[in-house]
């Protein structure tokens, strides 16, 4: 696997994403409306609560967190589960398996192009808008670098979660069911719909050790310097958690995939 091949895949992915030109604008617009909904909801919630700070989060903190979580969600979104079930049904999976690189690698790098596009087209504009609207509420320092690293790690964790769920599709045709379970769990337990800070203590403690929070909550906490990420030890423990999950999920995902593919090829399914 030469880097040139990988770059070629990324490039092809970028061009493919740009083909959907109107789709790109519509996605941006739909996101904006979604954020308006989020804004009004939390404004009402804070207005009714009577205090300005809840669980260490001000209204502004919550909004920035949720807006960036949405942008991150778009950026990280993959459709591996759907693609997989489609290519199994059409038999295209055989061709994918014959590609001169491992399927996991191939999938990861084919998606990298659309990641680049959505990062430039959704995350960066969102970030800039947030900066302007909040007049610089996000600290611009080393945290940006830490955030970038955490995001790459989040991307790998997310990819592995997707791949593991997609592998299950080799065993059952119930793609919808499997996908919705995954989506629900990830959205709730990663803090993408409600910031983890609002979770009740016991539930919050459990969730903090699960891989899902490493996808959304960790990069955002680091960016916003919450959850102790403004100290070296806090930062290290967040990164440590991410790294552990990267390793565990990569190994588990690879083993599960290899095992399943072997089984499927033997059965001729």
């Amino acid at each position, binding site marked *: 696997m030469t880097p040139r091949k990988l770059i070629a895949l990324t490039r092809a992915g970028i061009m493919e*994403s740009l*083909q*959907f030109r*109107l*789709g*790109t604008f*519509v*996605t941006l617009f*739909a*996101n904006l*409306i*979604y954020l*308006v*909904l989020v804004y*009004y*909801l939390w*404004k*009402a*919630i804070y*207005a*009714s*609560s009577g205090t300005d700070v*809840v*669980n260490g989060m001000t209204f502004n903190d919550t909004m920035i967190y949720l807006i960036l979580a949405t942008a991150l969600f*778009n950026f990280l979104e993959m459709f591996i589960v759907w693609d997989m079930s*489609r290519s199994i049904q059409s038999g295209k999976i055989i061709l994918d398996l014959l590609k001169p690189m491992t399927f996991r690698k191939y999938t990861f790098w084919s998606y990298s192009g659309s990641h680049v596009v959505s990062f430039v087209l959704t995350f960066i504009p969102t970030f800039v808008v947030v900066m302007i609207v909040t007049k610089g509420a996000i600290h611009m320092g080393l945290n940006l670098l830490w955030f970038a690293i955490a995001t790459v790690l989040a991307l790998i964790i997310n990819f592995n979660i997707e791949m593991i769920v997609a592998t299950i599709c080799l065993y*059952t*045709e*119930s793609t*919808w*069911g*499997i*996908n*919705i*379970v995954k989506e*629900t*769990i990830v*959205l*709730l337990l990663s803090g993408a*719909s*409600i910031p983890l800070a*609002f*979770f*009740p203590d016991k*539930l919050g403690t459990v969730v903090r050790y699960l891989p899902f929070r490493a996808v959304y909550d960790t990069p955002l906490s680091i960016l916003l310097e919450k959850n102790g990420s403004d100290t070296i030890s806090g930062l290290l423990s967040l990164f440590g958690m991410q790294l552990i999950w990267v390793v565990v999920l990569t190994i588990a995902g690879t083993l599960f995939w290899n095992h399943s593919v072997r089984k499927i090829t033997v059965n001729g399914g």
Partner: protein
Amino acid sequence: MEKNKRGLGFYLRIYRKVLVQDLKSKMSYRADFVISTIGMIMTNLAGFITFLILFGKFPSINGWDYHHMLFLYAFSLIALTPVQCFFDNNWNLRFMVQSGDFIKYCFRPINVFFYFISEVFDVKGLGQLAFGVGTLVYAWNKIGLVVSVPIILKLLLYLLTASLFMIAIMNAAAATCFWIQGSGYVMVIMFRFKDFAKYPASIFSGIFRVIFTFVIPIAFVAYYPSLVLLDPGNVPLLSWISPALGILFFYLSYKFWMLGVRRYDFTGS
């Protein structure tokens, strides 16, 4: 020549037959049914947990207390059932359009929209219905609403109204794929908008109040119709006329969908 009498009765008969056949064939995929049902329960559970977490921290939103909010929540769940059960094939539309397979729906002497939609009946929506009904009964009791035949009839009428709006939203969202390549995200985000239907529309103000009432009518998916039951002494005009508006929105979305079929040039093949 005398074959031109395909009225409502004809379509109902065809629908019933397709449905019976579809259910029969679904029964032969038990594993799929079980997994999908688990998925459905999980999403509802996650939604409910989100709700509980929010109300654990904030006892009321915009003057609406826990039980009233629960009522809205349950109302929206029930109103979502028809779109889930009967209009689920909309999710496949963009794949069909992209691959060119959609053309097969145009070769029959029946309504294209009907033919397309009738193909899929989604059983798992019924799980959501059960969940919604249970919650509604609970909230109904806690609030201390009266039970009488006229009130139940009113409830049914306004539930139906609410679901018409949801169907209209999803129809229109799905139909965007006739114009825009890669518009899949529109459906995804519209489906996420529905999560905001369970909050009182009074949280919106200004232009967005208008948008979420008349353009993307999520205010009608629970808020306006349920006011008829929750606050009988003080029902706004919009609530009263919502059934007529619901029919209008459904009709418009249907026209939009059909316009897409006309406009689409079937070059996918």
